[in-house]
Every structure is written in C-alpha cells, then in structure tokens.
C-alpha cells in the first residue's frame, strides 16, 4: 500500500470527522435527525411511508372485502362506489388487493433491500479498503456470483429449503448486493487515499474503526441513492420469483403481480394498471425525498448548498 498521497500537501485539509471519542457517534445521528426534520420534503416523504406502514398493519380490519372474495359475474368492473378502484379478472376488489399487496411488497421491499445493503456495504468496504490480493479475490467472487444462472439458484434453494419467506428475501437481496458491493468498493477506493483517512491512520486508529467511522459514513450518499433504487426493483422482482413459485402465493397479491396483471389488461381495464402503478410511484417518490434528506442530513461535512 502506498504510503504517500500527493494531495496531502497541495490541498488544504478540510475538516474531516475529527473527533475520536465515542460520543461523536451519537451526536452525529442526533444532528442528522434534527437536520432531517428541517427538510420539509423529507419529512413529508417519511410521514407518507409511515402512513403506508400503518395502513398495512391495520389492513385486515379496514379492507372492504376479502382479498380472495370473487364475484365472477363482475370481472374487470370500472371503479364504482362499491369497488373504488374497480375489480380484477376474477371480480375481486382491487382496492382490497392493493391494500393486502402492500403488506407483502412493503415487507419484501424493505427487508430484501436491507439484506442487500448490509451485505453489500460491508463486503464492498472491506474489499475496497484492504485492497490488494484480498480485493482481487473478493471481487472475483462477486464476478462468479453474477454469472450463476439465477433461475437455477432459486430452484435449487427451493428444493432444499422449501418455499420459505426468508428464502425470498435472500433470493431478492442476492442480485442486488452484488452491485451494491461494487459501488461501495469504488467509493472506498477513491476515499481511502484521502487526507482524513491518512490522518486517522497516522493516529493509529484500527482498520475496522476507519471503515466504520470514516469510510462507510462517507459512502452513504451513493448507498442511499442506490437503496432507493433497490426497493422498487425488489418489489418488482418479486413478481418474477412468483413465476418460479417462490413469491407470493395465489390468491394473495403483491404490487408486483398486480402491476404485471395490469399490463395484460391495459387496454380493457386501464385502472387495473394505473392504481397499482400510482401507489408504487407514490411510495418511491416519498422514499426518494426521504433518501435525499437523509443523505444531506448524514453528510459528515454538513455541506449545504
């Protein structure tokens, strides 16, 4: 590992996270929290997400119909007073199915993304920071995993572990963490040669602490952005895993399956596509506002433009 940085002397050392005592961790998050609350859009986004989570929790009590209650004579009906968002191809109330679908999709979206973030960030940070042979090895493992035929992976996992909800999160998180790891590694490689890292190192701080205290917080920006991209894509990927028999089981629905069913009837019953799509977009907008707000709030340099 090269020991000198050319930038060290040419660029004035700005303020890194200079404090080293343990209280910093707390105050960092506290500050961030206050900054977040000041950001109106972010607060709105957070509130919207919380509201959705709340609705999901109470769905069984507020849903107007059962998610599997069919009225075969009333298939693909237009939105009406009885069915606010219309009905699907088996005459089931779409509003109800959207509510129930939210329970699955929100859970899948957040949990699977969490899996991918935690694994991806830790893996990428270690690989990028240690560098050298280990980096090479770890990244080649990622290459191999990328190349594995995903369909087979899921099928085989299902043979050995059955159709298990935990398996669903693992399978969904699986493809996502690989890209996440590469993104974090890229950031870390670029960061680790920076002044404040050198400074921390010269102060004798352990590698793990450098990764935890200096590198990971500094990669949070791209990580949060990629995370907000991961949530919708795992929600939609879930529909693909349903194809392999791993996702949500009929007659339950998820947002992903509602959207893919909606596409098929786009011309006949546009509402069957529009409402799930609006719901997913709304969630994603909120998530983005929240994500951007979080990113700004967590920016260790507190930079504001």
């Amino acid at each position: 590992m090269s020991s000198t940085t050319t930038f060290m002397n040419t660029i004035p050392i700005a303020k890194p996270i200079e404090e080293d005592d343990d209280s910093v961790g707390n105050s960092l998050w506290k500050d961030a929290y206050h900054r977040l609350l000041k950001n109106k859009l972010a607060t709105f986004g957070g509130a919207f997400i919380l509201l959705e989570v709340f609705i999901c929790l109470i769905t069984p009590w507020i849903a107007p119909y059962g998610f599997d209650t069919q009225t075969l004579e009333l298939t693909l009906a237009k939105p009406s007073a009885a069915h606010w968002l219309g009905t699907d191809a088996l005459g089931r109330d779409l509003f109800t199915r959207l509510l129930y679908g939210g329970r699955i999709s929100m859970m899948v979206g957040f949990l699977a993304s969490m899996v991918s973030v935690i694994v991806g960030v830790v893996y990428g940070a270690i690989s990028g920071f240690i560098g050298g042979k280990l980096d090479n090895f770890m990244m080649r493992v990622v290459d191999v995993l990328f190349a594995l035929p995903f369909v087979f992976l899921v099928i085989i996992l299902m043979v050995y572990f059955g159709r298990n909800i935990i398996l669903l999160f693992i399978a969904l998180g699986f493809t996502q963490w690989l890209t996440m790891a590469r993104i974090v590694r890229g950031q870390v490689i670029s960061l680790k040669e920076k002044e404040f890292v050198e400074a921390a190192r010269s102060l004798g701080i352990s590698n793990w602490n450098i990764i935890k205290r200096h590198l990971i917080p500094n990669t949070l920006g791209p990580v949060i952005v990629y995370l907000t991209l991961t949530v919708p894509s795992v929600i939609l990927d879930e529909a693909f895993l349903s194809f392999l028999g791993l996702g949500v089981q009929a007659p339950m629905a998820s947002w992903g399956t509602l959207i893919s069913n909606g596409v098929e009837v786009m011309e006949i019953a546009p509402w069957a596509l529009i409402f799930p799509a609006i719901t997913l977009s709304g969630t994603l907008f909120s998530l983005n506002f929240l994500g951007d707000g979080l990113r700004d709030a967590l920016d260790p340099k507190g930079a504001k433009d």
Partner: protein
Amino acid sequence: MTRKSYLIVGALALALVDLLGLYSLRTPAKAAAGKQVIRINNGAEPKTLDPHGATGVYEDLLLRQIYEPLVARDAKDLHPIPGVAESWKMSKDGKEYTFKLRTNAKWSNGEPVTAEDFVYAWKRILDPKTASEYASMAYPLKNAKGINTGEIKDFTKLGAKAVDAHTLKVTLENPTPYFLSLLDHYSLYPVYKKSVDTHGDRWTRPENFVGNGAYNLKSWEINKSIVMVKSPTYWDNAAVKIDEATFFPVDNLDTEEKMFRTKQIDVTREIPPEKLPFWQKDKTGVFVSSDYLGTYYFRLNVTKGPLKDVRIRKALNLAIDREKLVKYVSRGNQNPALAYTPPGTGGYNPPKVLPGDLSRLAEAKKLLADAGFPAGKGFPKIEILYNTQEIHKKMSEAIQAMWKENLGIEVGIINQEWKVYLNSMKTLSYDVARAGWIGDYNDPNTFLENFMTTNGNNMTGFANKAYDNAVIASQKEVNLEKRKVHFAEAEKILLDELPVLPVYIWRRNFLKATNVQGWYPNIQDLHTLKDVWLEATPG
C-alpha cells in the same frame, strides 16, 4: 407558398412516409398484385425441422408445408385423402395395407419420391441412434417397438417393404383402426436420405434441405422468421395459390395480437385470454373459434391423503360450476367437460356423467359428510398445484373459491416452474394438479390409454384392472361400433373412480385476416397452405 413549394413539401412528406416504412406497414397480405404472400405466427421457435426430432404443434404447422405424407387429410373434416399414395387397400384382418404411390411425386431437387424413401424414414425414426422422442408413433408397425428398444437388430424385419418403386406394403402388429390418420403425423413423414447422410445434423438448413411438400424452405433465422416458397417440383403445384409464406416465432400473446392489429401478421396462433371478450364481440369477421381435440382437467392424486377416498374425489368433482368457469374464467367459448374424452373424438360420444353446474351439490355435501368431514370440518389441508401461467392461476383460484364456498373446505394453491411441476407430477408429490391433454390423433385411444396402470402419462396413481382390460379390448377390435362399447365402458370406470377433474373441452381461438381463405377450422387444428388462398381485398 407557391405551387412549386407545395410540390416539394408534398414530395418530401411522401419520401418521409416511405422512409418510415409506414406505407408498407399498413398493407395487408398482398393478393391482387400477382404474388400471394401470407404471414403467419407460428407461436414459438420450432425445435427442429427434422420430422423425426419434432415433438409438438410448433413444428407441425411448419413441417406440414414442406413435406407431403403418404396419406393426407381433408382440410375440413380430416378424413384420410390421397397424399403421396394415390390409393391403398387394407386386408380383411386390418393388419396389412398396400399403398400405390403416385409416379409424379417429386422431391424438391426433382428426384422421384419412392416407396423406399418411406421405408428408410421409418427405419430412421425407429433407430435407437436417432433417439426420436416421438418414435412410439411408429410402434403400430410390425416389430417397430423391438427395433426402437434395441431388442431387434435386424431392421429388415420392420413391417414395411418396398415392393417396387411405387408400391409400399405395410404390416402392422395389431389392427390399428386409426393407422391411416397416423400417417399424416410428422413422425411418419418421408425424409430425403442423401441429404441426411451428407449433412448430418445440418440437413434441415435451407441450403441443404430437400423436402417433398408444396413448399420449399427459403430461409430460417432462429427466433426471427422462417420463409417458405412455393415448390416448383411439387406434383400438384398448379393447385397451390400462396406463393410465399413467412412464419414468425412470436411467443408473447400480447405482441402477437398487436402485430395482427397493425397488419404485420395475417393469422395468429392465439388470443390473449384477457382480450377474448373484446374479440368475441368483433364484427369484422377476424375472430375464429373452433373445437379442438383436447381436455383441460385437473389430476387428483389417488395415493395421498383424503383424496384416497373416492367419495371425496367425487365431492370435489360435483362442487365446481363448470359452466361458470368456462363463462367467466377461461372465457374462450369452451364447452364444459362432462366426461374426460372430448365428445365426437373419432365418432365416439362419451357418456355425460358429470354435471355442468351445481345441480348435484347436495350429493357432494353428503359424500363429504359420509367421508367424515361434514360441512368440510376437519378437512386436512390439501393444495392445488399449477405450472406458472396466468390462465392456470386464475382457474385454480376460481376452483379454490368454489370449494370453499360450496363445501366449506380450505385448499391452498401453489405454483411451480414447468420442469419442477412435471417432476412433482411424475413423483406423485401433489394433491390436485392442473393438467391438459391434446389428442395426437383423432381416436379416443389417445385419451383413454393414458390412465392405464402402467402408462407414463397416468401420473395419478390410478390403477384399475377392469379399466385396463376395456382399453386393451378397444385396441384389438376393428369394428368401430364394438370399439365404442369398450370406450364407454372404460370411460364409465374412469368417471366412477375419478382420478381426474375434467373442466372443459379445449377450443382454438385465434385471429385471421378476412382475406385469408381456406384456413378451415378442424378439431386438430391442422392447416396446409395448399388449401389456403388470399382473396383480393376490396379497395
């Protein structure tokens, strides 16, 4: 603007339209201007164009154009008509056929089609080295099975001899009443020996291909298109009207329908199920719906759990409203299946044992109570298995809801990817599983033999000696009326024991441009372009 600039703008606009290809896009199948060109969606990329490697409908439509069988079929009612054979005679015991081949039948390279070509082709499909999946279609020939399994090494023992270049003598293992319709199946098409010998696996490529059909292979690009042109060497080419045909492998039903609407194709393979109600109301005459030789049903595993009890199998059968399922779920003008074999198969009409509606629901409830589950109480958890496809999902969901409502039992639904699903069926690891059967030939045997104890397609665990005997008796009988008695006997046992839950008789629904003529509906959905022509579109 001056007149001149108007002209320039006009010319530019025309050029632009031309450049964008809008003009050609909007032209339907060309008829009037000399050349007749048709564009058909085949529905999928064919596995192969080797008739001995083919296994399904996606190859059938293509092979049927580039080969001519010994005995062909009438386009409307499918009765056997002369193909390469001009005439034939059957011996009294039904075990021997003598075919007279027409002398003007030619391969696409101009060489005559001879009796020896058929003998060669049949030996080839039976050769274990060819490893043909559909070799069993040739098993009615004497010693065919032995040759295929490797027990008989001497291929000359096969019950097919070329007496001379234009006389073919065929000996069968058993009298096989449907033998003539088998000859129209691609497995028994002739192939051109020299091409196979010279080019190996590549003999089906357009540059190496030699066929004897009304059309010749012009190009074949994987997943893109297959183009065929009228064959100049075909003996009856004066009667062939379509000059060129393009087959597309579009497997996305939605894309297919949109290509039809924008006049990129003239005949579709299917219609997206969601759009059936819309097309059924169509007044322009492009919607075609015809009977099809197939049954959509569910398998009931008789070896496991509560379904071991015939009373429960019967209760499940009586507690679904088939008419409603057809009307609101499958939606394609299908008829409810009141027996297993489709009515009219080979002239046989099965007894109508099952109800189309819920008229016998009380009986179902009683049967369930007798079996120890009054009003469904305490009924163990069973699952409906389907292979991933939207229409099967809907059907399973609807049936699940009907059982819940009518019998008070809770049934789960699971789906599996195609090969996993097949594996579950084979190993009997399911309770109720979605299934379908399309007849290989127009005879009840293709349906009924499946539920014989040792048949690989049984996959329900159903084993019944009396049933087996009835089917075997029908196979050995030549007289149709006597066979019908055996069929009915077998069918009756099947519907008493109910290892199946028939839902509906299949139907083919597709779109066909109005100027396409001669694409006659028939129960096996077999179409030879030789019968088809394009009418000049008015305007």
